[in-house]
């Protein structure tokens, strides 16, 4: 992940790395970009920019290390630097407020007691997607990285440039927020609380 230039790859090596290690991740990259921007053209530009940067800085990529994490980090940084500012849906969440509210035993307990695993399994893909898309970008990002892309906490810490402890707590809060939304869906579907529990 270091930006330090280790060595210079030959033209042939660069092609091999680019085609063999970078391009196979294009589907995941585009999905991530789309879930950040919610716009097909912006997502396309973001992925293109990322690959251009990846090519330009290919010498700082160490062959055989995790190319997907390396690319995701570039994409995330490009998004913050170039797209977040002009994003059509800027983040307006007061994180302090969210962090305080979503960091209590009450919230933890409630988030589970009112929602059942079976009702979650009955939900439609659109409902799951909408719930995820409704989260503020920082919370959405950690869930995408962990659950959709299967990154470890350690990889996420590197991609997001935050300590592992922050990954852990942000993910926990993100999951509580997501459960809140899913709980709303479950109630509107009539899959609310178990009657025996009332």
């Amino acid at each position, binding site marked *: 992940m270091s930006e330090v230039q280790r060595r210079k790859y030959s033209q042939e090596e660069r092609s091999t790395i680019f085609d063999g290690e970078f391009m196979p991740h*294009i589907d995941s990259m585009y999905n991530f970009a789309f879930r950040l921007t919610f716009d097909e053209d912006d997502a396309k530009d973001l992925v293109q920019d990322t690959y*251009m940067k990846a090519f330009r800085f290919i010498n700082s990529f160490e062959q055989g290390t995790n190319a997907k994490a390396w690319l995701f980090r570039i994409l995330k940084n490009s998004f913050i630097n170039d797209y977040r500012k002009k994003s059509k849906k800027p983040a307006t969440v007061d994180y302090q407020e969210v962090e305080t509210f979503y960091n209590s035993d009450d919230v933890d307990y409630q988030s*589970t*007691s009112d929602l059942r695993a079976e009702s*979650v399994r009955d*939900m439609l*893909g659109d409902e799951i997607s909408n719930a995820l898309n409704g989260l503020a970008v920082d919370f959405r990002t950690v869930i995408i990285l962990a659950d959709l892309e299967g990154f470890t906490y350690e990889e996420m810490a590197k991609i997001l440039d935050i300590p592992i402890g922050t990954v852990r707590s942000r993910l926990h809060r993100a999951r509580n927020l997501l*459960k809140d939304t899913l709980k709303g869906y479950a109630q509107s579907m009539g899959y609310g609380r178990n009657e025996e529990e009332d």
Partner: protein
Amino acid sequence: MPNRWDTAGTKRRIKRQAMENNDASSPERKLQCSDVSKCFQLLERILDGELVEGGPQLLQEKLDKCQPCFAHFHLEQAIREVIKTKCTKQPLPDKLAESIRQMIQDAR
């Protein structure tokens, strides 16, 4: 790396373990958890395949003996599952890969 679990293997083990403990209500389990936040965060880390000291034994104990932990674990597992399997994938635009290859070619 010696200090990390094999994530896929760990997840398989956890799944097996959870299936063996799939009985939704058990008289053996206590109905109140004395440390909800700590327990839930621990369960989430285990589900995410992170290294937790004594993870498998701890999980076994929570699933066997604590109803809120049992419910939380299965709910969290269901959410991870639906996110992974049901979230709509955005199809890659037709010519994106091609245009990226072209841009790289031009840049050389």
